[in-house]
C-alpha cells in the first residue's frame, strides 16, 4: 500500500544552518528522481525547477476542540493540487522557515483525509549548524523543537568546530533526541540517499538501533526536551493500548512532541506502526513480522516532562 503513496520529506533548520544549500544540492544532483519542492523564500533558491512552489506558511487551528491541533492550510491546498499531476514527480520536499515549529507541518499529514490518502510523511530532516547550535538552543525554543521532531539530523559546518566542540554539540543533540540518525556534513554534503526515501516511519529499522541507556531513576521534570524508549516482550492488547495511549495523548499531548512505536498485537502476524504528533495519532498495520525477528513492542517518546516510571508502567500494562 505504502508504495503508491507519495513520500514527503520535511526540511527544517534554523536560519543560516544550511537548509537552502542542502535543497540546492538535492535539486541539482543527478539522482534520477524528480521532486516537487514547496518553499517560502523563493529568491534564495538558485536552481531552475518547474516544480518549485512558493507559499506563505499559513498555520490554521482545526475546529475539532483540540487546542494544539494546528495544520498548514497552504500545504493542504498545494499538495492537493500537486497530486493532480502525480506522474510528474517522485516525491515532495517541504522547506519550512527557520523559525517554524515543525508540528503543524507534521500534523497536516495526519489530519487531512485527502492528503493522508495520497501521501506519506517520509522523514523530517533537520539541518543544524555545529558552531552556532549551542547558542541557538539557549535562546530559541524552535531550535530545540526542530531537533526533537527530526528523524534525520544533518550536523552541518563541522569544519568550523574542533573535535571537542563537535562531540559536545552531538551530545547536546542526543540529549534531546536519541533516535534520529545524525549525519556530519560540511556545506550540507550529505549523500541524498541518506535523506530522501528514508521510510523513517517504517520504524522497525530505526528502533532496532536505539539502545536506551537511561535507567528508571532518571525522571525528567524539566522544560528540556528528552527522549525515552520502552519495550514490552509480551503481545499487546490493542484495546488496552488504545485506551492508555489515547488518555496519555489527551492529557500530556502538548508535552509529547513525537510518539512512535512498532507493536506486536496479540494474535496478529503483522507489525502495527503507531505514531503521533502532540495529540494527533495515527496507526496502521505494516508488513508481517519476520520469522527470526523477536516480536518485541517498542515505543518511543520525545517531549518535555517525561515521567519514565509512569510511562513504563503504562506501556507494560497494555500486555494482553
Amino acid at each position: 500500500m505504502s508504495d503508491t503513496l507519495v513520500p514527503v520529506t520535511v526540511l527544517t533548520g534554523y536560519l543560516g544552518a544550511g537548509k537552502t544549500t542542502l535543497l540546492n544540492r538535492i535539486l541539482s544532483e543527478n539522482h534520477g528522481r524528480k521532486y516537487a519542492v514547496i518553499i517560502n523564500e523563493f529568491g534564495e533558491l538558485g536552481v531552475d525547477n518547474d516544480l518549485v512552489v512558493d507559499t506563505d506558511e499559513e498555520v490554521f487551528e482545526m475546529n475539532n476542540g483540540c487546542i494544539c491541533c494546528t495544520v498548514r492550510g497552504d500545504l493542504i491546498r498545494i499538495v492537493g493540487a500537486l497530486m493532480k499531476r502525480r506522474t510528474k514527480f517522485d516525491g515532495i520536499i517541504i522547506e519550512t522557515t527557520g523559525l517554524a515549529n515543525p508540528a503543524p507541518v507534521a500534523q497536516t499529514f495526519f489530519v487531512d483525509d485527502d492528503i493522508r490518502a495520497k501521501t506519506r510523511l517520509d522523514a523530517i530532516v533537520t539541518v543544524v549548524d555545529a558552531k552556532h547550535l549551542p547558542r541557538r538552543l539557549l535562546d530559541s525554543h524552535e531550535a530545540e523543537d526542530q531537533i526533537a521532531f527530526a528523524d534525520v539530523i544533518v550536523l552541518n559546518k563541522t569544519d568550523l568546530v574542533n573535535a571537542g566542540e563537535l562531540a559536545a554539540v552531538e551530545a547536546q543533540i542526543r540529549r534531546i533526541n536519541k533516535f534520529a540518525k545524525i549525519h556530519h556534513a560540511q556545506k550540507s554534503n550529505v549523500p541524498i540517499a541518506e535523506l530522501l526515501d528514508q521510510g523513517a516511519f517504517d520504524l522497525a529499522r530505526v528502533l532496532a538501533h536505539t539502545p536506551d541507556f537511561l535507567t528508571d531513576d532518571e525522571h525528567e521534570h524539566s522544560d528540556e526536551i528528552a527522549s525515552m524508549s520502552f519495550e514490552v516482550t509480551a503481545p499487546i492488547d490493542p484495546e488496552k493500548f488504545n485506551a492508555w495511549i489515547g488518555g496519555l495523548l489527551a492529557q500530556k499531548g502538548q508535552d509529547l512532541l513525537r510518539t512512535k512505536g512498532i507493536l506486536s498485537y496479540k494474535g496478529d502476524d503483522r507489525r502495527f506502526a503507531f505514531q503521533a504528533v502532540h495529540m494527533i495519532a495515527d496507526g496502521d498495520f505494516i508488513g508481517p513480522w519476520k520469522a527470526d525477528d523477536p516480536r518485541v513492542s517498542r515505543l518511543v517518546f520525545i517531549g518535555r516532562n517525561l515521567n519514565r516510571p509512569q510511562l513504563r508502567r503504562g506501556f507494560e500494562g497494555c500486555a494482553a
Partner: protein
Amino acid sequence: MSVTSPDFMLETRGAQRSLDAFVVAATFDRHGGTAAFGGSDGSVWLLDMADRAEWRNVMTHDGSVLALSPDCLPGGFLSGGDDGKLCRIGTQHTCLASFGSKWVEQVVSFADAKQRIFAVGVGKAVQIHAENGAVLKRLEHPSTVTGVVFDARGKRIAASHYGGASLWFVASKTDNPRKLEWKGSHTGIAIDPAGENVVTSMQENSLHGWRLADNQHMRMSGYPGKTQAMSFTRNGKWLATSGAESVVLWPFFGGGPMGKAPTELAGGDTAMCSFVACHPKHDAVAAGFSDGLVVLADIATSRIVPVAAPGRGAISAMAWSPDGAYLAFGSETGFAAVVDFTARA
C-alpha cells in the same frame, strides 16, 4: 445496448475523449457554443458544440491549469495556472498577466448589458479586471483566497479564506469588505441567485452560511468527506453539494436550512459524490461520483437518469451550458465528455 444501460446517454448523445491528464475544470463559453476542459498538464481542450466532432488542444500553461472560466467577452475563455499566468483563449490565446511564482487559483467572470469584468484570486489578493485586462482594483485578504464568486448581478464579489469570507462591492470607491466571520479554514464559496446568502465549504467536512439580511449563521454538517462542489438551483431554493455518498441538497426556503434535514438524492452506493452542477433552467442537478458514475437527478420527483456508467475515474469537473442543453464533465483519470440534453423531434 438498451435504454436501461447506464451509458445510454453517453453512447447515444455524447461526445467523449481521453485527455491524458486530470481534468481540473470544465465550462462553456457565454453563448454555450464551445465546451472547454482544463487539464493538470496545462492544456485546455475545446469542443465546438455545432458538430461536437473536433477536439482542439490549446496548451496554455507550463504546469497545471488551476482555474477555467468563460471569458466576459463572447466566445472565449480565461484560464489561471500554477505557472503564475492568466491567459485568454479566443481566436488566439494570449497571456494577460503574470504573477511570478504565485499560483492563479481562481478565475471568475461576469457579463451583462452594462458591464463585462473578470476577477482572479492570487495568493491573498483578488484582482478585478476590465474586459480588456486592465486592473480595476486589487482587494487584499487576511490569508490566501480559496474561492471567489460574483453575485448574480455582478454588483458584489465574495472571497473565502481562513476565518470566514469577505464580501466587496465591485464598484465601490472605498474598499472595505463586509466581513463574514467564522472560525476555521474556509475552502470554497457560493452565493445564492438572489444574493441573500453566502455559503462556504470548510476544512472540517461541513458548510457554513451567513444570511446577509440579519447575519444569521447557518451550520450545515454531517459530511463524511470534504465538499468540493456547491451549486444553487436556478431559483435559489436548494443548495446541492458534494462530499457524501449521495447528493446532499439543503433547503433555502421555509426557514431552512436551519433546523431542516437536507434532501439526499442518488444515494445508496458506497461511492462518494465528488461533483455537482445544478441545471440552469430546471430544478435538476447533475452529479458525478468517485467511481465515475454521472447522473441527472430531478429534485421534485427524485427521479434519476443515468448519464455515464462508473469506471472512467472519479468525476472532478462538471458544467452545464448556459441554456442547459449540454452537460460537460471530466474525471481524475482524464476522461472528458459532453452529453446533449436537447429535446429531439
